[in-house]
């Protein structure tokens, strides 16, 4: 096995005294783990920060073997660590990718989306600019894992107009007319997920509530549940911004 590509660092765990096992999101080969010799050295620690883009080279004699990985920094997102919201968002986005995605499953759309999300976190003038990208990334991740939401038509009436809710049971959209009476039991579908465009804070928080529900129920179950704590801290911080 030989993969050489620019990749996004998603997780780094110490291995032995000096090495590390890094899990990187690659454009064509999905999430790939690799052993980085000296990964905890002074030289490589700033390179192996989650969110950084590195030129990665994975080499293994067989497909089953943990690949040896060499990395060279292409783009550092280290300067963002000093910003509370940006650091929390990078922490969550990379941890979600590392925890939820199976290794070796090609997910080029997710790579593009994660790269775009991290770029938005880096360059957007405020958190409102990247929160929509975060919600869309979570939706795409759900879809790639087979838990996609059907937001094209109402599950009750088949109507494709005025979709305002999502059924937590079927993960399908519900029209305003059909769902109004059950609004308390349904999840609100924010317009920016239906029609695109920009969104205000109440809609963004509704979007996070929507994706959070399905991530919790379908993806981050059992041992992976602990990862959601990072999301909870991020959402609380975003709520404080809106207040």
């Amino acid at each position, binding site marked *: 096995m030989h993969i050489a590509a620019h990749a996004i660092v998603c997780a780094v765990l110490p291995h032995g005294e000096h090495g590390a096992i890094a899990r990187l999101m690659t454009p064509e080969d999905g999430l790939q783990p690799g052993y980085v010799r000296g990964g905890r050295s002074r030289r490589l620690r*700033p390179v192996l*920060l989650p969110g*950084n883009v590195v030129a990665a080279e994975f080499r293994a004699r067989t497909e089953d073997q943990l690949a040896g990985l060499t990395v060279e920094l292409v783009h550092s997102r280290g300067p963002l660590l000093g910003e509370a919201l940006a650091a*929390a968002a990078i922490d969550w986005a990379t941890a979600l990718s590392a925890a939820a995605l199976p290794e070796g499953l090609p997910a080029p759309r997710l790579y593009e989306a994660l790269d775009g999300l991290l770029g938005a976190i880096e360059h957007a003038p405020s958190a409102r600019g990247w929160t929509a990208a975060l919600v869309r990334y979570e939706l795409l991740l759900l879809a790639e894992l087979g838990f996609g939401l059907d937001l094209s038509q109402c599950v009750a009436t088949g109507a494709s107009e005025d979709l305002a809710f999502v059924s937590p049971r079927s993960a399908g959209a519900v029209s305003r007319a059909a769902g109004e009476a059950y609004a308390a039991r349904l999840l609100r579908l924010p317009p920016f997920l239906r029609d695109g465009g920009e969104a205000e804070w109440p809609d963004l928080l509704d979007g996070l509530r929507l994706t959070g529900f399905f991530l919790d129920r379908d993806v981050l179950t059992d041992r992976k549940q*602990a990862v959601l704590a*990072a999301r909870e801290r991020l959402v609380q911080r975003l709520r404080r911004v809106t207040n």
Partner: protein
Amino acid sequence: MASPEIETLTQALARLPGLGPRSARRAVLHLLKKREAAMAPLLRALEAVNERLVTCHVCGNVDTTDPCTICADPRRDARLLCVVEEVADLWALDRARLFPGRFHVLGGRLSALEGVRPEDLAIDSLIRRVAAGGIDEVVLAMNATLEGQTTAHYIAERIESFPVRLTQLAHGLPVGGELDYLDEGTLAQALRARRPVS
């Protein structure tokens, strides 16, 4: 061929950080050769520490007294509090004797993937120390990693309502570091934290 007792000692030493089977065997041979000069003092020191080892109930440091020698030292400035992730960080800072205040050891850092939550760390005891008053400045000395900084931001939010000055260790160019060998993240931090030359 060594006896089972010596073999057990070698295996125990080989499990220590920084030692492998070969270096453990060399250490054992040295101890056997210098039984009086090396083995006996080592044994006494290990026994003394093992009998009296405690975790300081104030700061979380490990010592042979509770409160630890740092917390009990009246020459330390009680108005300054430095928060670190691990005991190793406390010892590293105290080794240089640059920080005149006291410490608080969190016992780790928030980690999404390892499932470390705020309640798993000594954050509540830190808040109680700050709330008790008598502290003017809290220095957040977390590692410059994503997890370390996420922890620092979390603590900063918890402490911001108290009337204390909240500071953080500077990030940037290390002493003796050459620009050519630094990553762009460190360089960006160093540029951001530049200061006038007086």
